């Protein structure tokens, strides 16, 4: 356990050091993007990984928050109002999504979330008096909480990092809480959970709300990062990209979505500068992940690493004979 905490502390320190270690503004901006997409993927992962509910409409949730923030800012309100309004809009949209889509599960759930996401996209596209159609809304300024300006790449990175760490901590607490266990229960054995007295629908509903909250937070970060929002950010491809992050990194793990977000953002934005056919590369990476680590990058790497470690130990027969085979218990498979 101590190794774990040491690694965690090292990771946090490394993240804090990013703006100091990287002098090139551009890469600090890429790091900010990774973190904000990671927040989005973490939110989606609550539903996909822990709830077993695959959503293809999550970009609609973050998009609703983005548009609310941009609209309020364009109307001349302050950042506090805009952020509060954006969270409210995100949560309201989520409640609507949840109320409608949780009537179904499995494929039907996917299709309903997809349809709802497309409705939000259509609103953004067509409700021109509010959203300015596909010309989008520009946001003139970033907020300056406590007098610290977020206008610079470093400032924005620091703010995003704080939000990201809070999001990771919230997810960790959520997942390890009795409620998180109940959610995993509704994923694996909904009927038994029902028989045990859990209100399966309600458990899923509140998980959806938590997921929507994180999506809304990511939406706010997104609109402040880009200082612009247009319907493309709400399109099906954006939702699908989020899902790819979750699945490639490892659904149902805390770190998986973060790694997935990093993978997608880096290939899309950094590798694409060197390789014209970067989306082929992204596709190839996903195929490789599916072939060699179908459970995702993070759990897959852990499995391979453990296997290699065990193999190395077995090759030392003396050590193997002395120590009774103490199999690492391993984390309970989600």
């Amino acid at each position, binding site marked *: 356990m101590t190794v774990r905490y040491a690694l965690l502390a090292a990771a946090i320190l490394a993240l804090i050091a990013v703006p100091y270690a990287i002098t090139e503004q*551009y890469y600090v901006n890429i790091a900010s993007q990774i973190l904000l997409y990671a927040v989005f993927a973490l939110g989606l992962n609550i539903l996909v990984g822990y709830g077993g509910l695959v959503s293809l409409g999550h970009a609609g949730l973050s998009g609703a928050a983005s548009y609310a923030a941009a609209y309020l800012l364009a109307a001349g309100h302050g950042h506090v109002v805009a952020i509060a309004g954006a969270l409210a809009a995100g949560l309201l949209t989520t409640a609507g999504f949840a109320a409608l889509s949780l009537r179904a599960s499995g494929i039907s759930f996917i299709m309903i979330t997809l349809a709802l996401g497309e409705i939000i996209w259509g609103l953004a596209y067509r409700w021109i008096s509010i959203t300015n*159609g596909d010309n989008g809304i520009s946001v003139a300024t970033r907020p300056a909480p406590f007098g610290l300006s977020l206008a610079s790449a470093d400032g924005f990175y620091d703010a995003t990092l704080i939000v990201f760490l809070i999001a990771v901590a919230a997810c960790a607490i959520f997942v390890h809480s009795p409620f998180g266990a109940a959610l995993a229960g509704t994923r694996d054995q909904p009927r038994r959970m029902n028989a045990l007295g859990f209100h399966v629908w309600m458990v899923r509903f509140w998980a959806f709300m938590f997921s929507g909250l994180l999506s809304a937070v990511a939406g706010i970060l997104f609109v402040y990062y880009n200082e612009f929002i247009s319907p493309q*950010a709400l399109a099906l491809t954006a939702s699908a990209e989020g899902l790819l992050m979750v699945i490639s990194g490892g659904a149902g793990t805390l770190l998986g979505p973060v790694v997935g977000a990093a993978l997608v953002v880096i290939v899309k934005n950094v590798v694409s500068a060197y390789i014209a056919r970067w989306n082929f590369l992204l596709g190839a990476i996903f195929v490789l992940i599916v072939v060699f680590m179908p459970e995702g990058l993070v759990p897959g790497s852990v499995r391979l690493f453990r296997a290699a470690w065990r193999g190395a130990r077995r090759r030392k027969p003396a050590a193997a004979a002395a120590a009774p085979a103490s199999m690492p218990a391993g984390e309970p498979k989600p």
Partner: protein
Amino acid sequence: MSRTVSRRKLLASTAAGAAAVAMRFPAPAIAQAAPFRLGLLTVKTGPLAQGGILMEQGVLTYLKEKNYTLGGRKTDLFTADTGGNPAGAKTKAQELVERDKVDAIVGPLAAFELYAISEYIIQQKMPTLSLAAADNLTQRTPNPFLLRASATSSQATQPLGHYAATELKHKRTVTVSEDFAFGHEQMGGYQAAFAKDGGCVVNKLWPPLVTPDYTPYIAQIGDCDSVCQGFAGSNPLRFMKQYANAGMKYPVLAGEAGADDFLLKSFGDEALGLVSAAPYTLDLESDGNQRFVSGMLKNFDAIPGQYAALLYGNCQVLDAGLHAAGGDISDKEKFMAVLKNVSLTDTPRGPLKFDHLNNVIGTIYIRRTGREGAKYGLKLWNKTIKTYENVSQFWTWPEREFLAHPVYSRDYPPLMKC
């Protein structure tokens, strides 16, 4: 973090200072010789890639022709693929500006991409020569660092409306175009200019950008003299084919993208008689166009359309501006003022200059698609039947009157009863 200066540090900094002094003499010569860094924002993946690749070919054709020298300075090209979405455009603009340290940007392609980076190019004072037609960026919300040497969305369809009303004597038109800003602005321009000369748009149809089958929309066309289509990309091909298959006989008018010359090789007989308006035409007999077309054929074996031609033109404007500024672009505001004053005569599209809002004033060509005069192995040809010279984005309205009405949109100008 200590503030004490060690002897080693002192020595090092003294040495560095001495070196800097020593370097001062050759420094201006180095600045002169430093290459000009040109950034290209284009789309090479996704549904808009076809146009984006043609844009890149236009830029490369010009650079090759000039042996990678603009305004007497060696030029390095940095190409970035936005993926055709606004967030990608922003990130890639940052890549060009912050990482590649470019001196000017040509592109991006789509209006929403340009809107997404509009604030950013002001913050960074980055001279940008776009292809994107988003009207308002040179109209009601002008951007001082944007120079549009291509055209606004409505710049070509306004003369088309005039031509339809006065020369073709059409009275009633149904417009059909994609349901996004480029379509809205094109058709708005047509409608306003057509109405000014006594015409009337009787119905406006807006199929979504990705429409597998236009038949339900074609079925709504009727009771008119002509149909005006403002499709873009490869959609004109499918629309014209389905229109002909439906047995429709009303003459068809098209915006700049609806009969783009690069589509000629893919059109069939259904395109015969199509009348279109565009800021560039392949059949323009001029040295400038000849050089451009033969360059495109030589380098890429591609018959160009306006995507390539207008980007080639952007590079020409940049080249001329750099010459006028003597290669000195350290003051970006001054450089923009120089660029704005550029006026050229031998571009592929003919003469061009700029208005005070940084939008191009140039020739608009009305063409009819037929077989006559076809070159480069094509079976069809857009033959110019009328030219409108010195067309501004305001058409014939006084600027103040034009800017007083809202930007052309789905609902403006409104549909009148007639």
